[in-house]
């Protein structure tokens, strides 16, 4: 199939960007979206042009590196799918697609479709961990974890930190990401000691980074490739209110 892409090109953070139109020919339906961009980049390099910069690493949908807004939807229109796992069979010959980077003041553009998601790292640094004593490996099941808590923690821990939730939110809010991290640790026994301190510090950092507030619209959960649900935001609210008013 042949596609027309309108891609955001921006040489550097401080530079002005613009949309550039490209034709990509003979795209196989078996390619992933990123492989289709590899083909385009190959053409650009052969023609002596600068290839399009985009983030990627695992290409298996597990690392959270990739991500771009494909025709108005973060990671494209397939549910629960990262851009690297999006396959070209979902598109058809003659499609015109617009590719844009995540847009948020907390995610400055580095180049083209690559943004700096350091804000997420700083939210994690603020409290997204549990402190454990060093020493011998503890016995398995030394700390009993209720099955329900283990399941909830696993669901929340699936977040790969891709930033699609921020990109999709009309307020550029990071509540789904922060909620996933707070819920993941907050429902486990190991996370209890630092539970209050953690939520206060992570929310303070989240606001500090310049993300917007949450209006409970739910576009975040709808585009999340790991299907993190809005209930982690309710838990984040619950934990923050409890920690603040203790």
């Amino acid at each position, binding site marked *: 199939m042949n596609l027309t892409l*309108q891609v955001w090109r921006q040489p550097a953070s401080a530079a002005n960007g613009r949309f550039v139109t490209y034709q990509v020919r003979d795209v196989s339906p078996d390619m992933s979206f990123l492989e289709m961009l590899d083909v385009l980049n190959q053409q650009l390099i052969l023609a002596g042009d600068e290839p399009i910069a985009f983030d990627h690493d695992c290409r298996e949908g597990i690392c959270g590196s990739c991500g771009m807004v494909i025709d108005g939807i973060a990671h494209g229109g397939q549910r629960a799918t990262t851009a690297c796992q999006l396959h070209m069979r979902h598109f058809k010959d003659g499609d015109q697609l617009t590719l844009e980077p995540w847009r948020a003041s*907390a995610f400055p553009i580095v180049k083209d479709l690559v943004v700096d998601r350091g804000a997420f790292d700083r939210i994690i640094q603020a409290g997204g961990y549990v402190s454990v004593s060093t020493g011998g490996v503890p016995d398995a099941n030394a700390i009993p974890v209720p099955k329900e808590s283990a399941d909830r923690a696993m669901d929340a821990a699936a977040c790969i930190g891709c930033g699609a939730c921020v990109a999709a939110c009309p307020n550029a*809010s990071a509540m789904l990401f922060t909620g996933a991290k707070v819920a993941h640790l907050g429902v486990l026994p190991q996370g209890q000691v630092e539970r209050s301190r953690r939520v206060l510090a992570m929310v303070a950092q989240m606001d500090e980074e310049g993300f917007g507030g949450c209006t*409970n*619209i739910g*576009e975040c959960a709808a*585009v999340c490739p790991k299907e993190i649900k809005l209930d982690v935001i*309710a838990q984040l609210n619950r934990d923050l209110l409890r920690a603040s008013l203790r």
Partner: protein
Amino acid sequence: MAAAAIALYRSSIGKKAVMAITGIIGYGFVIMHMVGNLKMFEGRDGFNHYAEFLRTVGEPAVPERTLLWIIRIVLLVAVTAHVTAAIQLTRQGVAGRPTGYRVKRRVQANFASLTLRWGGLALVLFLIYHLAHFTFGVAHHDFVRADPYHNVVSAFSNPAIVGVYLIAVAALAMHLFHGVWSMFQTLGLNRPSTDRLWRGLAVISALGLFAGFATVPLSVLGGLIR
């Protein structure tokens, strides 16, 4: 405690909690107000007695209009806090995305959730008009201070005024269609097991309030109340 409350308000979640609590106050008030309006069907004496009752309830233990003023002050504080937090959060949200997308498609968001801010603005404007209309009478063409029944009937004989009120109660219904569910979520009172309950309450609240508030103006216009 005061320091903790100020620190909480500084966070976006704290501001949202203020919106949710003041929203509950407003939600409770509009339900009582809607039920009170239906006393129009009890005729001139029934409705005016009810208005009189609101003025004199608690007498002689407390002076006339005590309850009325308590309600007014609580509502004024609640609306002021609600709107202040709304403006602060809106500014934070707008600053969060200085450059928009060229193409943006919504996946599941509905009209009500996306228009909360515009709906809120419409409600502020309506509130000012509504107070000038029925409370102070300055926006009323034939205002009689001691006869609220007359004021309602003479106002809603005009289809244009009925239209304005229908638009306003539709805006209120839209606001609460999202808002009632949202406030449980904001206060951390929503769980996977309660989600459908609060969504349902929001839908029923929106439909019920729209029907209840629309009944009186339409009944006057249709000649059922005269």
